[in-house]
Protein backbone atom coordinates (compact mmCIF):
# COMPACT_ATOMS: atom_id res chain seq x y z
CA UNK A 1 0.00 0.00 0.00
CA UNK A 2 1.99 3.02 -1.21
CA UNK A 3 2.12 6.39 0.46
CA UNK A 4 0.96 9.34 -1.62
CA UNK A 5 1.12 13.09 -1.09
CA UNK A 6 -1.04 15.72 -2.69
CA UNK A 7 -0.80 19.36 -1.77
CA UNK A 8 0.13 22.93 -2.41
CA UNK A 9 2.70 25.12 -0.71
CA UNK A 10 4.37 28.51 -0.61
CA UNK A 11 6.78 27.42 -3.36
CA UNK A 12 4.29 27.72 -6.19
CA UNK A 13 0.97 28.82 -4.75
CA UNK A 14 0.28 32.38 -3.58
CA UNK A 15 -1.21 32.97 -0.18
CA UNK A 16 -4.51 34.07 -1.76
CA UNK A 17 -4.94 30.51 -3.07
CA UNK A 18 -3.45 28.75 -0.04
CA UNK A 19 -5.87 30.44 2.33
CA UNK A 20 -8.81 29.15 0.29
CA UNK A 21 -7.61 25.58 0.72
CA UNK A 22 -6.65 25.77 4.38
CA UNK A 23 -8.43 23.39 6.78
CA UNK A 24 -9.17 24.63 10.27
CA UNK A 25 -8.09 22.16 12.95
CA UNK A 26 -11.64 21.55 14.15
CA UNK A 27 -12.76 20.51 10.68
CA UNK A 28 -9.89 18.13 9.96
CA UNK A 29 -11.37 14.97 11.59
CA UNK A 30 -14.56 15.34 9.55
CA UNK A 31 -12.55 15.97 6.39
CA UNK A 32 -10.47 12.85 7.02
CA UNK A 33 -13.67 10.85 7.63
CA UNK A 34 -15.07 12.09 4.37
CA UNK A 35 -11.83 11.36 2.50
CA UNK A 36 -11.67 7.79 3.70
CA UNK A 37 -15.38 7.40 3.14
CA UNK A 38 -14.91 8.39 -0.48
CA UNK A 39 -12.53 5.46 -0.93
CA UNK A 40 -9.67 7.71 -2.04
CA UNK A 41 -7.50 6.57 0.87
CA UNK A 42 -7.37 3.87 3.53
CA UNK A 43 -5.22 5.98 5.84
CA UNK A 44 -4.82 9.76 5.76
CA UNK A 45 -3.30 12.79 7.51
CA UNK A 46 -4.07 16.39 6.60
CA UNK A 47 -1.40 19.01 7.25
CA UNK A 48 -2.68 22.55 7.02
CA UNK A 49 -0.38 25.44 7.92
CA UNK A 50 -0.01 28.98 6.64
CA UNK A 51 2.59 27.78 4.15
CA UNK A 52 1.14 24.48 2.97
CA UNK A 53 -1.93 22.28 2.70
CA UNK A 54 -1.07 18.63 2.16
CA UNK A 55 -2.85 15.30 2.26
CA UNK A 56 -0.74 12.27 3.13
CA UNK A 57 -2.53 9.08 2.20
CA UNK A 58 -1.94 5.35 2.03
CA UNK A 59 -4.07 3.40 -0.39
CA UNK A 60 -3.90 0.11 -2.28
CA UNK A 61 -5.27 1.80 -5.40
CA UNK A 62 -3.09 2.43 -8.43
CA UNK A 63 -1.13 5.66 -7.61
CA UNK A 64 -2.20 7.85 -10.54
CA UNK A 65 -5.88 7.00 -10.01
CA UNK A 66 -5.57 7.48 -6.26
CA UNK A 67 -3.88 10.85 -6.70
CA UNK A 68 -6.63 11.96 -9.07
CA UNK A 69 -9.13 10.99 -6.37
CA UNK A 70 -7.21 12.98 -3.75
CA UNK A 71 -7.17 16.02 -6.03
CA UNK A 72 -10.93 15.77 -6.56
CA UNK A 73 -11.40 15.55 -2.81
CA UNK A 74 -9.19 18.58 -2.14
CA UNK A 75 -11.01 20.71 -4.71
CA UNK A 76 -14.42 19.55 -3.56
CA UNK A 77 -13.66 20.05 0.13
CA UNK A 78 -13.06 23.71 -0.53
CA UNK A 79 -16.02 24.06 -2.89
CA UNK A 80 -13.70 24.59 -5.79
CA UNK A 81 -13.74 22.86 -9.12
CA UNK A 82 -11.39 25.30 -10.77
CA UNK A 83 -9.14 23.03 -12.83
CA UNK A 84 -6.79 25.94 -13.54
CA UNK A 85 -5.48 26.08 -9.98
CA UNK A 86 -1.74 25.71 -10.33
CA UNK A 87 1.00 24.48 -8.09
CA UNK A 88 -0.75 21.38 -6.81
CA UNK A 89 1.80 18.62 -6.56
CA UNK A 90 1.13 14.93 -6.40
CA UNK A 91 3.84 12.51 -5.35
CA UNK A 92 4.04 8.77 -5.07
CA UNK A 93 6.79 6.65 -3.58
CA UNK A 94 9.65 7.21 -3.14
CA UNK A 95 9.26 10.99 -3.61
CA UNK A 96 6.23 11.11 -1.29
CA UNK A 97 8.20 9.66 1.64
CA UNK A 98 11.19 11.87 0.89
CA UNK A 99 8.85 14.87 0.80
CA UNK A 100 7.40 13.95 4.19
CA UNK A 101 10.92 13.74 5.63
CA UNK A 102 11.93 17.04 3.99
CA UNK A 103 8.88 18.78 5.47
CA UNK A 104 9.61 17.34 8.93
CA UNK A 105 13.21 18.58 8.74
CA UNK A 106 12.23 22.08 7.62
CA UNK A 107 13.97 21.66 4.26
CA UNK A 108 10.78 22.54 2.41
CA UNK A 109 9.98 25.53 4.61
CA UNK A 110 10.04 29.19 3.72
CA UNK A 111 12.73 29.71 6.40
CA UNK A 112 15.16 26.91 5.70
CA UNK A 113 15.61 24.54 8.64
CA UNK A 114 12.89 26.07 10.84
CA UNK A 115 11.42 23.78 13.46
CA UNK A 116 7.86 25.06 13.80
CA UNK A 117 6.66 22.86 10.95
CA UNK A 118 7.79 19.73 12.82
CA UNK A 119 5.43 20.64 15.66
CA UNK A 120 2.63 21.26 13.19
CA UNK A 121 3.30 17.94 11.49
CA UNK A 122 3.22 16.14 14.84
CA UNK A 123 -0.10 17.81 15.71
CA UNK A 124 -1.60 16.89 12.32
CA UNK A 125 -0.49 13.28 12.68
CA UNK A 126 -1.70 13.06 16.27
CA UNK A 127 -5.11 14.44 15.31
CA UNK A 128 -5.49 11.84 12.55
CA UNK A 129 -4.24 9.03 14.77
CA UNK A 130 -6.56 9.90 17.66
CA UNK A 131 -9.54 9.75 15.33
CA UNK A 132 -8.42 6.44 13.88
CA UNK A 133 -7.51 7.67 10.42
CA UNK A 134 -3.98 6.30 10.38
CA UNK A 135 -2.81 2.70 10.22
CA UNK A 136 0.41 0.75 10.15
CA UNK A 137 1.69 2.37 6.97
CA UNK A 138 1.32 6.03 7.87
CA UNK A 139 2.12 5.45 11.55
CA UNK A 140 5.46 3.99 10.59
CA UNK A 141 6.20 6.68 8.00
CA UNK A 142 5.39 9.55 10.36
CA UNK A 143 7.29 8.06 13.30
CA UNK A 144 10.25 7.60 11.01
CA UNK A 145 9.89 11.20 9.78
CA UNK A 146 10.08 12.48 13.36
CA UNK A 147 13.17 10.33 13.99
CA UNK A 148 14.81 11.60 10.81
CA UNK A 149 14.09 15.20 11.85
CA UNK A 150 15.78 14.55 15.19
CA UNK A 151 18.73 12.87 13.49
CA UNK A 152 19.16 15.78 11.06
CA UNK A 153 18.91 18.31 13.87
CA UNK A 154 21.64 16.64 15.91
CA UNK A 155 23.94 15.50 13.11
CA UNK A 156 23.90 18.53 10.80
CA UNK A 157 23.94 22.31 11.13
CA UNK A 158 20.69 22.82 9.23
CA UNK A 159 18.97 24.27 12.28
CA UNK A 160 22.00 26.03 13.72
CA UNK A 161 21.86 29.74 14.40
CA UNK A 162 19.21 32.35 13.95
CA UNK A 163 18.02 33.61 10.62
CA UNK A 164 15.83 36.50 11.75
CA UNK A 165 17.01 39.83 13.14
CA UNK A 166 15.06 39.34 16.39
CA UNK A 167 16.49 35.93 17.15
CA UNK A 168 20.03 37.05 16.24
CA UNK A 169 19.63 39.82 18.84
CA UNK A 170 18.63 37.21 21.42
CA UNK A 171 21.62 35.09 20.50
CA UNK A 172 23.95 38.07 20.89
CA UNK A 173 22.46 38.80 24.30
CA UNK A 174 23.19 35.19 25.26
CA UNK A 175 26.83 35.68 24.24
CA UNK A 176 27.14 38.64 26.58
CA UNK A 177 24.97 37.82 29.60
CA UNK A 178 25.13 34.68 31.74
CA UNK A 179 21.34 34.64 32.05
CA UNK A 180 18.62 36.62 30.31
CA UNK A 181 16.29 36.00 33.22
CA UNK A 182 17.41 38.99 35.26
CA UNK A 183 18.03 41.45 32.41
CA UNK A 184 16.14 44.67 31.79
CA UNK A 185 15.34 45.76 28.25
CA UNK A 186 14.66 49.29 27.03
CA UNK A 187 12.88 49.76 23.70
CA UNK A 188 13.36 53.22 22.20
CA UNK A 189 10.92 53.74 19.32
CA UNK A 190 8.08 51.26 19.09
CA UNK A 191 8.65 50.07 15.53
CA UNK A 192 7.74 46.68 14.12
CA UNK A 193 11.25 45.17 14.17
CA UNK A 194 12.06 46.53 17.63
CA UNK A 195 8.78 45.11 18.90
CA UNK A 196 9.63 41.67 17.47
CA UNK A 197 13.13 41.83 18.94
CA UNK A 198 11.79 42.86 22.36
CA UNK A 199 9.20 40.12 22.16
CA UNK A 200 11.94 37.57 21.39
CA UNK A 201 13.96 38.74 24.41
CA UNK A 202 10.94 38.66 26.70
CA UNK A 203 10.04 35.17 25.47
CA UNK A 204 13.57 34.09 26.47
CA UNK A 205 13.01 35.35 29.98
CA UNK A 206 14.14 39.00 30.05
CA UNK A 207 12.85 40.30 33.38
CA UNK A 208 11.85 43.88 32.83
CA UNK A 209 10.86 45.94 29.83
CA UNK A 210 10.60 49.70 29.42
CA UNK A 211 9.28 51.41 26.29
CA UNK A 212 10.02 54.98 25.25
CA UNK A 213 8.36 56.45 22.19
CA UNK A 214 7.63 59.96 20.92
CA UNK A 215 3.97 58.99 20.95
CA UNK A 216 3.32 58.08 24.57
CA UNK A 217 0.10 56.25 23.65
CA UNK A 218 2.03 53.88 21.44
CA UNK A 219 4.64 53.38 24.17
CA UNK A 220 1.93 52.56 26.70
CA UNK A 221 0.20 50.17 24.29
CA UNK A 222 3.39 48.22 23.55
CA UNK A 223 4.43 48.22 27.21
CA UNK A 224 1.03 46.86 28.20
CA UNK A 225 1.19 44.18 25.51
CA UNK A 226 4.63 42.97 26.59
CA UNK A 227 4.06 43.37 30.31
CA UNK A 228 6.46 46.31 30.71
CA UNK A 229 6.24 49.98 31.61
CA UNK A 230 6.20 53.11 29.48
CA UNK A 231 8.78 55.83 30.11
CA UNK A 232 8.82 59.39 28.87
CA UNK A 233 10.79 59.81 25.65
CA UNK A 234 12.48 62.85 27.18
CA UNK A 235 13.85 60.73 30.06
CA UNK A 236 14.98 57.56 28.32
CA UNK A 237 18.68 58.35 28.76
CA UNK A 238 18.24 58.13 32.53
CA UNK A 239 17.15 54.52 32.12
CA UNK A 240 20.63 53.63 30.84
CA UNK A 241 21.92 53.40 34.39
CA UNK A 242 19.51 50.50 35.04
CA UNK A 243 18.89 48.58 31.83
CA UNK A 244 21.10 45.92 30.26
CA UNK A 245 19.81 45.85 26.68
CA UNK A 246 18.65 48.78 24.54
CA UNK A 247 16.75 48.26 21.30
CA UNK A 248 16.59 51.48 19.36
CA UNK A 249 14.49 52.05 16.28
CA UNK A 250 13.33 55.62 15.91
CA UNK A 251 12.93 57.80 12.84
CA UNK A 252 15.29 60.46 14.23
CA UNK A 253 17.49 62.00 11.53
CA UNK A 254 20.49 62.23 13.91
CA UNK A 255 22.17 60.20 16.67
CA UNK A 256 20.09 59.95 19.83
CA UNK A 257 22.99 58.48 21.76
CA UNK A 258 26.64 59.32 21.26
CA UNK A 259 29.88 58.59 23.07
CA UNK A 260 29.90 61.94 24.89
CA UNK A 261 26.47 61.30 26.39
CA UNK A 262 26.98 57.62 27.23
CA UNK A 263 30.51 57.72 28.72
CA UNK A 264 29.55 59.66 31.90
CA UNK A 265 26.74 57.19 32.62
CA UNK A 266 28.98 54.11 32.61
CA UNK A 267 30.61 54.43 36.07
CA UNK A 268 27.13 54.25 37.60
CA UNK A 269 26.63 50.89 35.90
CA UNK A 270 29.54 49.40 37.87
CA UNK A 271 30.91 47.49 34.89
CA UNK A 272 27.70 45.73 33.96
CA UNK A 273 27.75 45.04 30.20
CA UNK A 274 25.42 47.16 28.05
CA UNK A 275 24.14 45.66 24.81
CA UNK A 276 22.92 48.24 22.30
CA UNK A 277 20.91 47.09 19.30
CA UNK A 278 20.41 49.88 16.79
CA UNK A 279 17.77 48.88 14.25
CA UNK A 280 17.19 52.41 12.94
CA UNK A 281 18.11 53.78 9.51
CA UNK A 282 19.53 56.40 9.78
CA UNK A 283 21.23 55.06 12.87
CA UNK A 284 20.22 56.21 16.37
CA UNK A 285 23.52 55.38 18.09
CA UNK A 286 26.95 56.73 17.22
CA UNK A 287 29.27 53.85 16.21
CA UNK A 288 32.02 55.29 18.44
CA UNK A 289 30.22 54.02 21.57
CA UNK A 290 31.38 50.52 20.65
CA UNK A 291 34.87 51.59 21.75
CA UNK A 292 33.67 52.16 25.32
CA UNK A 293 34.46 49.38 27.76
CA UNK A 294 31.57 46.99 28.53
CA UNK A 295 29.48 48.47 25.70
CA UNK A 296 28.55 46.26 22.74
CA UNK A 297 26.85 47.92 19.80
CA UNK A 298 25.17 46.18 16.86
CA UNK A 299 23.37 47.90 14.01
CA UNK A 300 20.90 46.45 11.54
CA UNK A 301 23.66 45.54 9.06
CA UNK A 302 25.56 43.60 11.73
CA UNK A 303 22.45 41.61 12.64
CA UNK A 304 21.53 41.00 9.00
CA UNK A 305 25.08 39.87 8.20
CA UNK A 306 24.93 37.35 11.05
CA UNK A 307 21.50 36.11 9.92
CA UNK A 308 22.74 35.83 6.31
CA UNK A 309 25.82 33.92 7.43
CA UNK A 310 23.67 31.42 9.29
CA UNK A 311 21.43 31.04 6.27
CA UNK A 312 24.50 30.43 4.11
CA UNK A 313 25.68 27.76 6.56
CA UNK A 314 22.25 26.15 6.47
CA UNK A 315 22.24 26.12 2.67
CA UNK A 316 25.63 24.44 2.68
CA UNK A 317 24.09 21.66 4.77
CA UNK A 318 21.18 20.99 2.43
CA UNK A 319 23.02 18.46 0.21
CA UNK A 320 24.06 16.48 3.30
CA UNK A 321 20.51 16.52 4.65
CA UNK A 322 19.07 15.43 1.30
CA UNK A 323 21.50 12.51 1.19
CA UNK A 324 20.46 11.42 4.71
CA UNK A 325 16.80 11.75 3.76
CA UNK A 326 17.24 9.66 0.60
CA UNK A 327 18.94 6.92 2.60
CA UNK A 328 16.34 6.98 5.38
CA UNK A 329 13.45 6.96 2.90
CA UNK A 330 15.00 4.06 1.04
CA UNK A 331 15.46 2.16 4.31
CA UNK A 332 11.84 2.77 5.29
CA UNK A 333 10.52 1.59 1.94
CA UNK A 334 12.73 -1.49 1.93
CA UNK A 335 11.64 -2.27 5.50
CA UNK A 336 8.07 -2.11 4.25
CA UNK A 337 9.09 -4.94 1.96
CA UNK A 338 7.94 -3.19 -1.15
CA UNK A 339 10.77 -2.64 -3.49
CA UNK A 340 7.75 -1.37 -5.40
CA UNK A 341 8.85 2.22 -4.82
CA UNK A 342 11.43 1.76 -7.55
CA UNK A 343 8.67 1.96 -10.06
CA UNK A 344 7.08 4.98 -8.38
CA UNK A 345 5.54 7.74 -10.40
CA UNK A 346 5.42 11.48 -9.93
CA UNK A 347 2.28 13.07 -11.21
CA UNK A 348 2.05 16.82 -11.58
CA UNK A 349 -1.14 18.73 -11.95
CA UNK A 350 -1.59 22.29 -13.04
CA UNK A 351 1.66 24.18 -13.37
CA UNK A 352 3.89 21.71 -11.51
Amino acid sequence: MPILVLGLSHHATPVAVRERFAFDAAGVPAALESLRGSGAADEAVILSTCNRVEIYAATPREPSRALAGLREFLLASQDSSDARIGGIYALSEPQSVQHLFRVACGLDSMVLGETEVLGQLKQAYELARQHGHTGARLNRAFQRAFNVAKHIRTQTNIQRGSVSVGSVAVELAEKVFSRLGDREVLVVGAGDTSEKTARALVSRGARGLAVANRSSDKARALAAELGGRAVSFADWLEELARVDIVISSTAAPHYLLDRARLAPLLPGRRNRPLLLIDLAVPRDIEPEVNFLENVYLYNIDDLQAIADDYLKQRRQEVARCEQIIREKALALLEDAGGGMWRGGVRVAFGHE
Partner: protein
Amino acid sequence: MDWLTDRHLFLLAVALYGLSLVYSVFLWRNGFRRDNRINYLLLLAAFGPHSAAMLLRGFHLGRCPVTNLYEATLFIMWSIVGGYLGIGLWARLRFLGAFVSPALFALGVFALMPGLDTPPSVWPGLGTFWMSLHAALLLLAYGAFGLSAAAALMFLTQERNLKVNKLRAIGSLLPPIQRLAAAAERLLAGGFVFLTLGLGVGGLALARLEHPQAYRGDPKIVWSVGVWLLYLGLIIWRWRFAQGGRRFALGVLGSFLFVLLTFWGTNVLSPLHNP
Protein backbone atom coordinates in the same frame (compact mmCIF):
# COMPACT_ATOMS: atom_id res chain seq x y z
CA MET B 1 59.44 -2.17 35.70
CA ASP B 2 62.74 -0.47 36.57
CA TRP B 3 62.88 1.01 33.12
CA LEU B 4 59.71 3.05 33.83
CA THR B 5 60.56 6.05 35.98
CA ASP B 6 58.43 8.97 37.09
CA ARG B 7 60.17 11.10 34.44
CA HIS B 8 59.04 8.69 31.70
CA LEU B 9 55.47 8.99 32.93
CA PHE B 10 55.75 12.76 32.98
CA LEU B 11 57.26 12.71 29.48
CA LEU B 12 54.19 10.78 28.31
CA ALA B 13 51.94 13.39 29.97
CA VAL B 14 53.84 16.22 28.23
CA ALA B 15 53.42 14.43 24.90
CA LEU B 16 49.66 14.34 25.52
CA TYR B 17 49.71 18.03 26.48
CA GLY B 18 51.45 18.59 23.14
CA LEU B 19 48.64 16.76 21.33
CA SER B 20 46.14 18.87 23.24
CA LEU B 21 48.02 21.98 22.11
CA VAL B 22 47.80 20.87 18.47
CA TYR B 23 44.06 20.26 18.83
CA SER B 24 43.69 23.63 20.58
CA VAL B 25 45.28 25.36 17.59
CA PHE B 26 42.66 23.64 15.43
CA LEU B 27 39.90 24.89 17.77
CA TRP B 28 41.27 28.44 17.67
CA ARG B 29 41.48 28.43 13.88
CA ASN B 30 38.02 26.97 13.70
CA GLY B 31 36.64 29.84 15.82
CA PHE B 32 35.62 27.45 18.64
CA ARG B 33 32.76 26.11 16.56
CA ARG B 34 33.47 22.48 17.40
CA ASP B 35 32.74 20.69 20.63
CA ASN B 36 35.76 20.57 22.93
CA ARG B 37 35.29 17.01 24.19
CA ILE B 38 38.40 15.66 22.45
CA ASN B 39 40.60 18.23 24.13
CA TYR B 40 39.04 17.42 27.49
CA LEU B 41 39.74 13.71 26.95
CA LEU B 42 43.35 14.44 25.93
CA LEU B 43 43.93 16.44 29.10
CA LEU B 44 42.18 13.76 31.14
CA ALA B 45 44.47 11.15 29.55
CA ALA B 46 47.52 13.30 30.37
CA PHE B 47 46.36 13.77 33.95
CA GLY B 48 46.74 9.98 34.53
CA PRO B 49 50.50 9.60 33.86
CA HIS B 50 51.10 13.08 35.34
CA SER B 51 49.48 12.05 38.65
CA ALA B 52 51.25 8.68 38.53
CA ALA B 53 54.61 10.45 38.06
CA MET B 54 53.99 12.61 41.11
CA LEU B 55 52.76 9.69 43.23
CA LEU B 56 55.76 7.58 42.29
CA ARG B 57 58.16 10.34 43.24
CA GLY B 58 56.19 11.19 46.39
CA PHE B 59 56.32 7.59 47.64
CA HIS B 60 60.00 7.39 46.78
CA LEU B 61 60.78 10.61 48.72
CA GLY B 62 58.32 9.88 51.49
CA ARG B 63 56.85 13.39 51.25
CA CYS B 64 55.02 15.73 48.94
CA PRO B 65 57.18 16.14 45.80
CA VAL B 66 57.74 19.89 45.98
CA THR B 67 61.43 20.06 46.83
CA ASN B 68 62.93 21.47 43.62
CA LEU B 69 61.92 23.44 40.52
CA TYR B 70 61.11 20.31 38.51
CA GLU B 71 58.71 19.08 41.18
CA ALA B 72 57.26 22.53 41.80
CA THR B 73 56.53 22.91 38.08
CA LEU B 74 54.88 19.49 38.00
CA PHE B 75 52.73 20.43 40.98
CA ILE B 76 51.58 23.73 39.46
CA MET B 77 50.71 21.97 36.19
CA TRP B 78 48.92 19.23 38.08
CA SER B 79 46.78 21.72 39.99
CA ILE B 80 45.94 23.56 36.74
CA VAL B 81 44.88 20.33 34.99
CA GLY B 82 43.01 19.04 38.03
CA GLY B 83 41.12 22.32 38.35
CA TYR B 84 40.36 22.35 34.66
CA LEU B 85 39.03 18.78 34.70
CA GLY B 86 36.63 19.82 37.46
CA ILE B 87 35.53 23.03 35.75
CA GLY B 88 35.32 21.23 32.39
CA LEU B 89 32.42 19.14 33.71
CA TRP B 90 30.37 22.21 32.70
CA ALA B 91 30.32 21.77 28.93
CA ARG B 92 30.42 25.48 28.08
CA LEU B 93 33.55 26.06 30.19
CA ARG B 94 35.34 23.10 28.62
CA PHE B 95 36.98 25.41 26.08
CA LEU B 96 39.20 26.57 28.93
CA GLY B 97 41.33 23.57 27.93
CA ALA B 98 42.24 25.22 24.65
CA PHE B 99 43.57 28.18 26.62
CA VAL B 100 45.52 26.22 29.26
CA SER B 101 47.11 23.56 27.03
CA PRO B 102 49.73 25.94 25.49
CA ALA B 103 50.85 26.93 29.00
CA LEU B 104 50.85 23.29 30.14
CA PHE B 105 52.98 22.17 27.22
CA ALA B 106 55.41 25.07 27.68
CA LEU B 107 55.70 24.38 31.42
CA GLY B 108 56.13 20.65 30.75
CA VAL B 109 58.99 21.25 28.31
CA PHE B 110 60.53 23.71 30.77
CA ALA B 111 60.32 21.17 33.61
CA LEU B 112 62.07 18.53 31.53
CA MET B 113 65.06 20.78 30.89
CA PRO B 114 68.27 19.42 32.48
CA GLY B 115 69.39 21.02 35.72
CA LEU B 116 65.98 21.60 37.25
CA ASP B 117 65.60 18.20 38.89
CA THR B 118 68.24 18.74 41.56
CA PRO B 119 68.65 16.52 44.64
CA PRO B 120 66.05 17.29 47.32
CA SER B 121 66.79 20.42 49.37
CA VAL B 122 67.22 20.10 53.11
CA TRP B 123 64.76 22.42 54.75
CA PRO B 124 66.47 24.24 57.62
CA GLY B 125 65.15 22.75 60.80
CA LEU B 126 61.50 22.57 59.73
CA GLY B 127 59.12 19.64 59.80
CA THR B 128 58.41 17.89 56.51
CA PHE B 129 54.64 18.06 56.98
CA TRP B 130 54.50 21.81 57.44
CA MET B 131 56.89 22.53 54.62
CA SER B 132 55.02 20.18 52.30
CA LEU B 133 51.78 21.89 53.27
CA HIS B 134 53.34 25.34 52.74
CA ALA B 135 54.61 24.44 49.27
CA ALA B 136 51.49 22.54 48.22
CA LEU B 137 49.15 25.41 49.22
CA LEU B 138 51.26 27.94 47.32
CA LEU B 139 51.49 25.78 44.22
CA LEU B 140 47.73 25.18 44.33
CA ALA B 141 47.34 28.98 44.50
CA TYR B 142 49.47 29.44 41.40
CA GLY B 143 47.45 26.73 39.66
CA ALA B 144 44.23 28.61 40.47
CA PHE B 145 45.80 31.87 39.25
CA GLY B 146 46.79 30.05 36.04
CA LEU B 147 43.21 28.90 35.48
CA SER B 148 41.95 32.38 36.29
CA ALA B 149 44.34 33.80 33.68
CA ALA B 150 43.08 31.26 31.12
CA ALA B 151 39.48 32.33 31.84
CA ALA B 152 40.58 35.97 31.48
CA LEU B 153 42.19 35.16 28.14
CA MET B 154 38.96 33.49 27.01
CA PHE B 155 37.09 36.62 28.10
CA LEU B 156 39.46 38.89 26.15
CA THR B 157 39.16 36.70 23.04
CA GLN B 158 35.38 36.62 23.08
CA GLU B 159 35.06 40.26 24.13
CA ARG B 160 37.20 41.36 21.20
CA ASN B 161 35.22 39.18 18.82
CA LEU B 162 31.95 40.62 20.12
CA LYS B 163 33.22 44.12 19.35
CA VAL B 164 35.23 43.61 16.19
CA ASN B 165 34.70 40.18 14.65
CA LYS B 166 31.00 39.75 15.23
CA LEU B 167 30.44 36.74 12.98
CA ARG B 168 33.20 34.86 14.73
CA ALA B 169 31.78 35.78 18.14
CA ILE B 170 28.33 34.51 17.39
CA GLY B 171 29.57 31.36 15.67
CA SER B 172 31.79 30.27 18.53
CA LEU B 173 30.67 27.99 21.34
CA LEU B 174 32.50 30.00 24.00
CA PRO B 175 30.45 30.85 27.10
CA PRO B 176 28.95 34.33 27.64
CA ILE B 177 31.57 36.89 28.64
CA GLN B 178 29.78 37.61 31.90
CA ARG B 179 30.19 33.96 32.92
CA LEU B 180 33.86 34.00 31.90
CA ALA B 181 34.44 37.11 33.99
CA ALA B 182 32.73 35.43 36.96
CA ALA B 183 34.87 32.28 36.50
CA ALA B 184 38.07 34.37 36.40
CA GLU B 185 37.01 36.25 39.57
CA ARG B 186 36.14 33.12 41.53
CA LEU B 187 39.34 31.33 40.57
CA LEU B 188 41.31 34.42 41.53
CA ALA B 189 39.57 34.60 44.91
CA GLY B 190 40.16 30.85 45.49
CA GLY B 191 43.82 31.22 44.54
CA PHE B 192 44.20 34.15 46.92
CA VAL B 193 42.84 32.06 49.81
CA PHE B 194 45.41 29.31 49.05
CA LEU B 195 48.16 31.91 48.70
CA THR B 196 47.31 33.50 52.05
CA LEU B 197 47.16 30.13 53.82
CA GLY B 198 50.40 28.97 52.17
CA LEU B 199 52.24 32.13 53.15
CA GLY B 200 50.75 31.94 56.66
CA VAL B 201 52.04 28.38 57.11
CA GLY B 202 55.43 29.46 55.72
CA GLY B 203 55.52 32.45 58.11
CA LEU B 204 54.76 30.25 61.12
CA ALA B 205 57.46 27.79 60.06
CA LEU B 206 59.93 30.63 59.57
CA ALA B 207 59.19 31.98 63.06
CA ARG B 208 60.33 28.67 64.52
CA LEU B 209 63.83 29.08 63.06
CA GLU B 210 66.68 30.21 65.27
CA HIS B 211 67.31 33.49 63.46
CA PRO B 212 64.23 34.22 61.42
CA GLN B 213 65.25 37.86 60.90
CA ALA B 214 68.22 36.61 58.87
CA TYR B 215 65.79 35.70 56.09
CA ARG B 216 63.92 39.00 56.07
CA GLY B 217 65.51 40.10 52.82
CA ASP B 218 65.31 36.67 51.17
CA PRO B 219 64.33 37.29 47.50
CA LYS B 220 61.64 34.62 47.57
CA ILE B 221 60.03 36.04 50.71
CA VAL B 222 60.09 39.58 49.31
CA TRP B 223 58.72 38.30 46.02
CA SER B 224 55.98 36.28 47.75
CA VAL B 225 54.82 39.27 49.77
CA GLY B 226 54.87 41.32 46.55
CA VAL B 227 52.73 38.71 44.77
CA TRP B 228 50.31 38.60 47.70
CA LEU B 229 49.97 42.40 47.60
CA LEU B 230 49.55 42.32 43.82
CA TYR B 231 46.63 39.88 44.05
CA LEU B 232 45.16 41.68 47.05
CA GLY B 233 45.27 44.88 44.98
CA LEU B 234 43.49 43.13 42.12
CA ILE B 235 40.78 41.86 44.45
CA ILE B 236 40.25 45.28 46.04
CA TRP B 237 40.24 46.86 42.59
CA ARG B 238 37.58 44.43 41.43
CA TRP B 239 35.23 44.39 44.41
CA ARG B 240 35.78 47.75 46.10
CA PHE B 241 36.03 49.84 42.96
CA ALA B 242 33.79 47.61 40.79
CA GLN B 243 36.44 47.27 38.09
CA GLY B 244 35.52 44.54 35.73
CA GLY B 245 35.57 43.72 32.07
CA ARG B 246 38.59 44.14 29.87
CA ARG B 247 40.88 45.98 32.30
CA PHE B 248 40.33 43.44 35.07
CA ALA B 249 40.95 40.56 32.65
CA LEU B 250 44.19 42.19 31.52
CA GLY B 251 45.16 42.63 35.17
CA VAL B 252 44.56 38.94 35.92
CA LEU B 253 46.47 37.83 32.84
CA GLY B 254 49.35 40.24 33.45
CA SER B 255 49.67 39.23 37.11
CA PHE B 256 49.90 35.54 36.24
CA LEU B 257 52.47 36.22 33.51
CA PHE B 258 54.53 38.10 36.10
CA VAL B 259 54.31 35.12 38.48
CA LEU B 260 55.16 32.70 35.70
CA LEU B 261 58.20 34.62 34.54
CA THR B 262 59.67 35.45 37.95
CA PHE B 263 58.81 32.40 40.09
CA TRP B 264 61.79 30.36 38.86
CA GLY B 265 64.34 33.18 39.11
CA THR B 266 63.47 34.14 42.69
CA ASN B 267 63.56 30.48 43.66
CA VAL B 268 67.10 30.14 42.38
CA LEU B 269 68.20 33.38 44.11
CA SER B 270 66.69 32.44 47.49
CA PRO B 271 69.11 30.93 50.04
CA LEU B 272 66.08 29.81 52.05
CA HIS B 273 64.43 27.94 49.18
CA ASN B 274 67.59 26.93 47.32
CA PRO B 275 70.14 26.29 50.06
